[in-house]
């Protein structure tokens, strides 16, 4: 029996504890929950009767009742014997009320786990005592930590199948802690259990006298969550403006942080306008104050322009407003997340347009490695930069789930395609202004008689990028211009000598070069970057670092067979032999630019001809003035000026 079965009289008024159960397929999640419901007397005779019928038809436990069938609801999953959606279960003990999010263990349903975890306080992680910590165990633990759950109960289930062995239990606990220590949990409590028999689920087990800790339910009943921060500043997203008549204008919403009293000074974000709380309106009579979690309606002394999506907060609150963020996104739809596509962004009660540019990396949820990516597929988790069309008030997800969590919605279908966590605001443009307020890029450009720019040369290995870059550099310097070549191989001898050739390192390699190129361009140099840079995402990232019009993408286009036939460095041969992996064009894709500023077909152009094309472009675009003071043919008009 659950410690003191719930009865109307004995029911606790304490707010519900929400926990999520996670584990791999067959770890016994559904059995565990079925047992909790059964023992808290929430399974009625008619349910048990149909359980008897169902157990014979679908059950996996022979003649015994299969408690898992109490909770597996949808027809599809009963047939397949797996849980394919999030189910919510409710039960109570004399200590508190519980909401259980029962989530599936299958990899393809990561999105459901994230959904279930989004509102949970505690995670119950199940491990099969025979199998120990699996890849899925790690994945689930990472996901719950990502979603902000700070308390984990590690239930080592099926102890009966390892003869209730303490060393077996301890080995699993050690292996789990080693991994979980990196995840920032406040508490990890391990309990050996046998859900089928109920051992250490709701009551102490006779079979494991070596275990002196609480049963799972004893532990949950006693668990004290950190009280919500009493000092947190008041904040309430405005959900609905209630205007029944000309005399009443109330802002309805649920308070997500802190407390508000009549007479408090508040401000409206993002507008920043200030006023005083006139009334806190609820149907049963105005209270003097209201706190986090309560749904109220506020009226203000001043007639301000406040609408759905604004946030009311304490006047001295430090809640920021921003339109550019670094965020983690969990992708939840079959159609992948695409960079540059617009999605609806919904955070608190606000909906704006968002563009992802770029995806910084994908997190391998099994190894926690960062991997380069330019899109996120179903169940992928990635860190991205988000750009909104309007500023929103926010706090980082780690401080407040309600002001830091968001979903992405497909504009056309209206489907929820992703969910995410805001980390911090990006203020790149502000920083540039701040750093270079006196001598800015225009001053430098005027001094040198040229605009700083980045010429980004991309193409297969052996396409002739370095040769062409060298010719352009020589031509510019000879004409008294200021230029510099950043060459892939050379940079790896210094700035990037700590980087290898893993996918992750290659992304970092490009990122550093793009940042250096942007600095050089800012200093006024014509900066020539000669890198294979096979992925559109990285080139777009590099482009985003410099002002519009100063990024010149040059596709040095050589068919693979031609480049391979040249094979100046002998690399293609090596790659074909398998001695070199991840080689662009062989076992790693090359994404040709769709709309490069300059396209050079090296099957018809010589290297010299290609270099001339580039210099010609610089003249036409007004990046450099005419060479040797000679007006270019057809460009006899006013002398090129530097903006």
């Amino acid at each position, binding site marked *: 029996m659950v410690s003191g079965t*719930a009865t*109307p*009289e004995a*029911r*606790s*008024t*304490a*707010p519900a504890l929400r926990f999520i159960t996670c584990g791999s397929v067959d770890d016994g999640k559904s059995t565990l929950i079925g047992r909790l419901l059964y023992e808290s007397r929430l399974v*009625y005779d*008619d349910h048990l009767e149909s359980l008897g019928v*169902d157990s014979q*038809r679908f059950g996996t436990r022979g003649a015994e009742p299969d408690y898992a069938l109490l909770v*597996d*609801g*949808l*027809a599809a999953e009963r047939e397949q014997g797996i849980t394919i*959606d*999030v*189910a*919510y279960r*409710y039960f*109570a003990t004399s200590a508190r009320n519980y909401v259980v999010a029962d989530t599936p263990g299958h990899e393809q349903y990561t999105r*459901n786990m*994230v*959904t279930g975890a*989004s*509102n949970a306080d505690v995670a119950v992680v199940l491990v099969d005592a025979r199998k120990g910590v699996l890849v899925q165990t790690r994945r689930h633990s990472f996901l719950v930590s990502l979603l902000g759950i700070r308390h984990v109960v590690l239930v080592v289930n099926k102890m009966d199948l390892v003869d209730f062995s303490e060393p077996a239990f301890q080995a699993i606990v050690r292996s789990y802690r080693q991994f979980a220590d990196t995840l920032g949990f406040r508490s990890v409590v391990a309990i050996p259990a046998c859900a089928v028999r109920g051992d250490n689920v709701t009551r102490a087990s006779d079979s494991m006298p070596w275990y002196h800790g609480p049963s799972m339910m004893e532990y949950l009943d006693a668990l004290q969550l950190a*009280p919500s921060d*009493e000092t947190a500043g008041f904040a309430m997203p405005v*959900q*609905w403006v*209630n205007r*029944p008549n000309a005399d*009443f204008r109330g802002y309805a*919403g*649920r308070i997500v942080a802190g*407390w508000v*009293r009549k007479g408090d000074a508040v401000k409206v974000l993002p507008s920043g306008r200030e006023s005083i709380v006139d009334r806190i309106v*609820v*149907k049963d009579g105005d209270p003097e*104050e209201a*706190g986090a*979690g*309560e*749904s109220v*309606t506020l009226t203000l002394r001043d007639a301000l322009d406040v609408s*759905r999506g604004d946030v009311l907060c304490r006047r001295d609150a430090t809640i920021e407003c921003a339109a550019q963020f670094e965020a983690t996104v969990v992708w*939840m739809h079959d159609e992948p997340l695409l960079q540059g596509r617009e999605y*609806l962004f*919904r955070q608190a*009660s606000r909906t704006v347009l968002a563009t992802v540019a770029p995806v910084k990396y994908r997190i391998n949820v099994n190894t926690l490695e960062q991997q380069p990516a330019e899109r996120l597929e179903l169940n992928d988790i990635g860190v991205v930069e988000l750009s909104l069309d309007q500023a929103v008030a926010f706090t980082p997800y780690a401080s407040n789930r*309600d002001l830091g*969590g*968001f*979903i992405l*919605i497909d504009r056309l279908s*209206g*489907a*929820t395609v992703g*969910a995410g966590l805001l980390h911090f605001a990006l203020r790149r443009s502000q920083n540039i202004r701040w750093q270079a307020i006196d001598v800015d890029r225009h001053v430098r450009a005027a001094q040198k008689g040229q605009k700083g720019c980045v010429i980004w040369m991309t193409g297969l290995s052996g396409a002739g990028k370095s040769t062409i870059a060298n010719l352009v550099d020589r031509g510019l310097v000879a004409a008294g211009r200021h230029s510099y070549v950043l060459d892939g191989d050379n940079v790896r001898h210094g700035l990037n000598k700590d980087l290898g050739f893993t996918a992750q390192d290659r992304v970092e390699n490009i990122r550093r070069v793009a940042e250096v190129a942007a600095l050089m361009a800012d200093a006024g140099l014509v900066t020539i970057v000669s890198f294979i840079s096979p992925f559109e995402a990285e080139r777009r990232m590099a482009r985003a670092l410099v002002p519009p019009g100063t990024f010149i993408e040059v596709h040095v286009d050589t068919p693979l067979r031609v480049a391979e036939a040249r094979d100046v460095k002998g690399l293609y041969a090596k790659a074909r032999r398998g001695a070199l992996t991840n080689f662009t064009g062989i076992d790693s894709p090359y994404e040709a630019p769709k709309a490069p500023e300059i396209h050079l077909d090296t099957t018809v152009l010589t290297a010299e001809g290609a270099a001339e094309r580039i210099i010609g472009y610089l003249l036409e675009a007004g990046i450099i003035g005419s060479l040797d003071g000679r007006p270019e043919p057809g460009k006899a008009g006013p002398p090129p000026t530097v903006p």
Partner: protein
Amino acid sequence: MTGIRSPMSHLRQLEAESIFIFREVFAESEHPVLLYSVGKDSSVLLHLALKACYPAPLPMPVLHIDTTWKFREMYAFRDQIAVTHGLNLLVHTNREGLERGVNPFVSGSQEHTDVMKTQALRQALDKWGFDVAIAGARRDEEKSRAKERVFSFRAAGHRWDPKQQRPELWSLYNGRKRRGESMRVFPLSNWTEFDIWDYIMLERIPVVPLYFAAPRPVVERGGLLLMVDDERFPLRPGEVPQIRSVRFRTLGCYPLTGATPSTASDLPTLLQEMRTITTSERQGRAIDHDGAASMEAKKREGYF
């Protein structure tokens, strides 16, 4: 503002969440309607709706799908509530079904429910062009409901497809839809039967007197105690209604709703009695016994 304040109670937390859900509908939908079935859950639902919009009047009509077979006391209660709260009460009956002679005694529970409830609801939503229907279903009622979203998406033709349901994270409910698509919204999703009664007690919410024990004329049929509520009840040879002290745990069409022998004639004794109950709420309903996963099949067809 210092000092530790006591946390919100369980019921106040549920209340605040339901009000929040109502306000999402007020703010985001064009033609919402509140489905009102006259039962205890509907009483709580309406009570919360009025709190959510206070001091404004309820900004949406209230719709009762009338199979014509509800208990007489339910009709009386419904009409009185409508007057008390000044509701814009709409009542819809599937006339076609009625003319075809569909009726719970002759057609059986399955056909009756399909024609007079499921089809009738679809007709009504189409007739008035409602794009959001708020209903009082709870997740604890039945297994397939445990996975129901708070904002449940319905494709064109009111079709419920489990694969098209949207993930619901935090309190972010996505109510977006295109023409022809609609939403069913369930503000009581996280309430249990116990919560409902506790809240009715706490807030003194009026409910149909049938929930409390009183002497009523009943006959026993197929394991159910059925109340002979009017002259349409076809008594079988030898059947004589007996006056017994009974109450109803759920209310629906009287020929399909089983009574429980009980002496709990007020709320405190009723709550007392529930401590010892060993059957589920839906046990007194004929429609749920029609087959495994029957509720899921009904939902696919548009039953809420």
